[in-house]
């Protein structure tokens, strides 16, 4: 017999048999927009309270993000690309109820594997080398997430803890690689040698840093959306996330199997993000290769309410925010950590509103 809080809802029924929902699906997006407005006001408040030249700071923010072709094609979209990969990784995991907060570690594993393979296959033609390199990144990300998945399914280890801890392990692994087996031959700098041009992702626009990775990520966003909404396997992912008991009992779904697949798919997406970053932007492996994309990913995915197509927009927004914040620091002396503050506010805002909504449903 089950023991649980009185959450079966009210006794209220309209004549047509429908119990009123406190917030309808469309209302969620209104709430999201409201969160945005609150956050913008908070940022303005911080700027003014800090005694900064607010108009100048805001102008720098805008110009740094969208003000010029350079801002858009060499800053905003370049930063949005890895965010889109890891945002999708977190999004698909959360949809299945897998709280993978280790996209950072999976991205690093993907970047490390991509560079390692890239150094080995540099002599091959691009058409052969690039798929190998990207495949290695995806595989490494999968394997890294797979460790947490195995721990969860075999021993019941909470993935929130294992994926988070594995982030640190991955970061130190990268440190060791770039000071040890993969270090450049002069042994001066803690980084690898630059990858051969045959394993560089081609630029999309001549003279700008934007690379093919963005198209790959957009393709994956659409594919993820299609997978979740149109395939049986994607439906199982959503069912396990939304109601594991009913998925098992009414659907005959094996939740462990679905969960395992989600760990691997999520890790692969993050790993690809790392590979795309290494072959499209940095062309080498070094310690600071990710400024915390894997952590921002959580905010990216939550703001988009885990919807793969909306994740494209939120990744763009966060890419712009980070690019703009860098410009704001240069031009108006506002610390760029403001971007992190905004990310944190977004996560808190989304969670707080979700909480209100959940409570509203039952009273």
């Amino acid at each position, binding site marked *: 017999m089950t*023991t649980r809080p009185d959450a079966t*809802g*009210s006794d209220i029924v309209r004549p047509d048999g429908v119990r009123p929902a*406190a917030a309808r699906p469309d209302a969620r997006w209104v709430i999201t927009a409201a969160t945005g407005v609150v956050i913008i006001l908070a940022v303005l408040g911080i700027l003014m309270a800090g005694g900064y030249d607010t108009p100048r700071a805001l102008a720098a923010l805008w110009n740094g993000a969208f003000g010029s072709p350079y801002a858009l094609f060499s800053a905003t979209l370049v930063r949005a690309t890895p965010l889109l990969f890891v945002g999708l990784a977190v999004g698909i995991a959360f949809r299945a109820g897998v709280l993978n907060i280790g996209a950072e570690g999976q991205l690093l594993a993907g970047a490390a594997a991509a560079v390692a393979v890239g150094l080995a296959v540099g002599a091959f033609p691009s058409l052969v080398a690039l798929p190998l390199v990207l495949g290695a990144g995806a595989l490494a990300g999968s394997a890294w997430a797979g460790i947490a998945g195995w721990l969860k399914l075999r021993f019941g280890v909470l993935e929130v803890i294992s994926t988070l801890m594995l982030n640190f392990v991955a970061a130190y692994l990268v440190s060791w690689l770039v000071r040890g087996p993969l270090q450049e031959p002069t042994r001066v700098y803690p980084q690898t040698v630059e990858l051969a041009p045959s394993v560089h992702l081609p630029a999309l626009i001549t003279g700008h840093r934007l690379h093919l990775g963005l198209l790959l990520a957009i393709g994956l966003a659409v594919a993820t959306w299609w997978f979740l909404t*149109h395939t049986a396997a994607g439906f199982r992912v959503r069912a396990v996330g939304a109601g594991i008991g009913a998925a098992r009992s009414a*659907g*005959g779904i*094996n939740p462990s199997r679905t969960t395992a697949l989600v760990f691997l798919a999520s890790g692969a997406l993050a790993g690809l993000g790392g590979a795309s970053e290494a072959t499209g932007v940095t062309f080498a492996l070094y310690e600071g290769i990710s400024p915390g994309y894997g952590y921002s990913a959580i905010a990216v995915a939550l703001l988009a309410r885990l919807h793969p197509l909306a994740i494209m927009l939120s990744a763009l927004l966060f890419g712009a925010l980070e690019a703009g914040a860098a410009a704001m620091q240069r031009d108006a002396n506002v610390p760029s950590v403001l971007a992190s503050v905004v990310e944190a506010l977004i996560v808190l805002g989304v969670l707080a509103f979700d909480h209100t909504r959940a409570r509203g449903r039952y009273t």
Partner: protein
Amino acid sequence: MSDSALALEAIDKRFGEVQALRGASLTVRRGTLHAVLGENGAGKTTLMRIAFGLMPADAGSVRIDGTPVTLASGADAIRRGLGMVHQHFTLVPAMTAAENIALGGRGRLELRAVAERVHALGERTGLRVDPSARVASLGVGAQQRVEILKALYSNARVLILDEPTAVLTPPESEELFAWLRRFVAEGGTVVLVTHKLREALAVADDVTVLRRGECVLTAPAAHLDMIALVRAVTGDEATEPFSMPDIEARAGSPPPTIPRTRNRGPCVARLAGVSARDARGVERVREVTVDCFAGEIIGLAGVEGSGVHELLRLLAGRLAPSGGVATLPPRIGFIPEDRLRDAVIEEFTLTENVALRGAGRRRGRMPWPALASLTAGLMERHDVRAPSPATRAGALSGGNQQKFVVGRELDEHPTLVVAENPVRGLDIRATTHVLRELACSAEAGSAVVFYSADIDELLPLADRMLVVFAGRVREVPVERTAVANALVGAA
């Protein structure tokens, strides 16, 4: 001092477009047992939640012992001597009975003192519970006693019980009512929210009936009979025999005849010497042999902990046997007891919930247009009232959700139907509908296994009765005393 222990006057409550309560009033005299009746959605639970301070009313007043009060929370209500036992218990399974009872306390926690007080309270009131037992290990009846003790521990003088017998077996229900009568005789006050009219007539001093948010009847139980209650509850004049199996059986008249040919077909499912363990590895079913024949309804009874739930899951193919051989047909319809946990996903649409069936084996793409029209047809055939197949399942009332589940599981004429407490918590109309669906399913050639915690629901429908006791199954005659005796292991 007023002689009303609890009085709600002209309560209005609106949820969005829905007027849940319309000037509802309820006066509970001190030292009485007051039954509140009504269909699902009549506003019973809302009224009780307002009385207990769990939600504010839009208009109207609440008085406790004649004093107008504004209750901000359940804790407020408890301080003023109210206690509530919810339909779904609010206990922490991993904690002991004493720890659960101590939960609402303040300051230093002295568990031994709490346990002693609980023990003494149990001795004094007759609600015996082992204070050191983990709640998860207690049966449903014992969990309910813990809930009541929790209320009494905070000195509740007015107890509100929401559908307390929904999960109890008949002997447990009788025990509960005997206890409630004693509590009332000693000056306590009880508000009993229930669907079961016979129950209300048998134990209540006063009865209030809610319909569509309004109080349509308040009278001493002695002045009422079943017919008057049915009319008040449904607002209907018509009472055709088969539409009211619930009422007829409870009113003590002969069980309604079900228009069935009762042709027993071939054996479609067989458990041969099957044993099974629960999630904790305890053997619950011991070398049981059961044959299910096409076209028959097997009534299954068993108290909590007897292994009846494991047996149902074995038959439904949801639990693998630890020994013996289970031969089951490929198409099985399963209606589990805990709908929101095991049958529907509230945030999914109805179409998605239909798609859930067989999702584990499905390959390739989801045929959404076909699934949507299947859902629309299913809603039509099984009287599921919702705007469209794209409505979220969570937006439906409990009765409609259950009709939806029954429809989904029966629509493709499964070879075997396993129904676990399928009418628990449903109002008369939904109950009738579900029972009729089960009967029709058997008529159409399915083997039906129907378990209910309420013998009176089983007897009119069952062709055979099986009773589970201590992990073993016994076939008994389809009659009340035989079943009641077998339930407790008596010959």
